[in-house]
């Protein structure tokens, strides 16, 4: 169960890390983040089911598709609202969520989508007398790989330094001649792409249907708010805690439903409004 929770947490981490960075950087409340995840998910479903692509080959396309959509939306709509109030940002992005939910229901119907898995991801792997589902192992490996890559990129590359500067103090970063807009666009694409990857990986784990963007919005927001804005380590920790406690809650107290999760979130936010690892 701990293992399942951890795998689930990895999925939540992939879905939410992009939002954490973009929210921390531009203070843009992007409730439509999970719509990017849905793009990734449906790209994978379409390629795998209609054109018979192997599952692994669809993942990069899911990433690129969601990243492209993120850039287009950022250029056309979001860009104009950076200085607007939280409320306007919330409303615009909720509107986008509604549109995407309805559009997917139109094109793909309201059934839960599934996609054929390659044989090596099915079944389970015996280890130390216990058996682990192969797909969940794969998910954990992906999550850890992405987390490591992201942290390495942010900590060691020049681009990472620019992003960190922009998150910490945007005005100062601009003053130092960093092209914050461009850094933001790339980060936004990266975040959208990661969400798309998460969406594609979510198909097998939690299912994908037209209401995905709404159903997982709350989870993603919880991860971001609890982990702290702009903190990858925070998102990682929060996602694992949330994944494990959600699984544990469903296992031990099924009658409580999601009550426990919300209670923990409200309590944590009251204690630390900027999140566990947030700086501001």
């Amino acid at each position: 169960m701990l293992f399942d929770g951890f795998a689930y947490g990895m999925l939540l981490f992939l879905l939410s890390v992009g939002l954490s960075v973009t929210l921390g950087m531009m203070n843009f409340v992007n409730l439509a983040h999970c719509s990017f995840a849905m793009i990734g998910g449906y790209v994978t479903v379409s390629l795998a089911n209609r054109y018979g692509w192997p599952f692994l080959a669809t993942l990069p396309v899911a990433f690129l598709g969601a990243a492209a959509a993120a850039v287009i939306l950022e250029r056309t709509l979001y860009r104009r609202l950076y200085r607007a109030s939280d409320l306007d940002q919330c409303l615009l992005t909720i509107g986008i969520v509604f549109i995407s939910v309805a559009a997917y229901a139109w094109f793909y119907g309201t059934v839960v989508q599934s996609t054929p898995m390659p044989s090596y991801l099915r079944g389970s792997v015996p280890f130390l007398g216990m058996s682990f589902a192969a797909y969940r192992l794969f998910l954990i490996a992906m999550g850890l790989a992405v987390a490591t890559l992201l942290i390495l990129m942010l900590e060691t590359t020049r681009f990472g330094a620019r992003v960190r500067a922009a998150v910490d103090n945007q005005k100062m970063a601009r003053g130092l001649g960093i092209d914050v807009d461009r850094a933001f666009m790339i980060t936004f694409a990266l975040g959208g792409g990661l969400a798309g990857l998460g969406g594609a990986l979510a198909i097998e784990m939690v299912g994908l249907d037209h209401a995905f963007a709404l159903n997982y919005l709350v989870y993603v927001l919880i991860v971001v708010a609890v982990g702290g804005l702009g903190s990858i380590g925070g998102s990682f920790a929060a996602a694992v805690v949330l994944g494990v406690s959600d699984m544990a809650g469903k296992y031990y107290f099924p009658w409580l439903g999601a009550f426990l999760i919300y209670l923990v979130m409200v309590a944590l936010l009251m204690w630390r409004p900027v999140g566990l690892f947030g700086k501001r």
Partner: protein
Amino acid sequence: MEIAFWLATLAPFVVTPSYLSLASQIAITALFALSLDLILGYAGIVSLGHAAYFGFGAYTAGLLSKHYFGEPLTGLVLGAAAAGLLGYLTSHVIVRFRHLALIMLTLGLGLLLAEAANSASWLTGGADGLQGVKMAPLLGFKFDLYGRTAYAYSLAVLFLLFLVARRIIHSPFGLALRGIRENATRMPAIGAPSLAHLRKVYTIAAVIAGAAGALLTQTTSTVSLEVLSFGRSADALVILILGGAGRLYGGIIGAVVYMVARDQFSGLNPQYWYFWIGVLLVAVVMFLPNGILGGLSALRKKPQ
């Protein structure tokens, strides 16, 4: 202008008597949007969980009439008072936060209450809704099938609470609220107790939302989990933005447009209804930042 508007609200009795139940739904929704307007439009508290108070009032009124007595006016007052109490308790937490934490907290509190009502099915009936709500006649008038009493009742409550809200907005307290909305750090500096003001208006808004919820219970004789749902909070937000936040009539105009449109499109699959809501939201944010009323007053000013 205002008198003409309120006279026009009487028209459904004569012009469209078959739509009276829709009209009372509109009045209730308008009341709910008005309560959200007080905190969002005037005090600047963004809430994604305002349905918590609406639902709390609705369940209070429903449980009262199921287990104790069906007298509507007492039920309305008690429902509103219960929601107000909840609002007062939560306001201590809510007003201390801004930005993302505030949005998440209101969302979290709303979801928390909805989950609690879902889990406590022995009390609330859970997903099946609260059955067996029996309403006694209101001042001698029975709640009839055509919804005449229901509409008259909802409209009267809306009108009265609207007057209260207008009084609040035009008082020095209302002015202080707008000051806090514009600059939350400067107001305490000139001697306005910002947090106390916000707590007060949050409680008042909860009372009004509770009254709207109680009205819904009493005019429909059922309570379902939907009264606490995120969808209801979001609808109120959409209505308010559509009509124009920070304007007294914003919620009312928004409710009329939204509910009539939804009634007309109800033949469509609800999925696609939300598609248009989404388009509408994007359009309003991009092109009509102050809602219908804001757009109208901008048009009126332009020629001069």
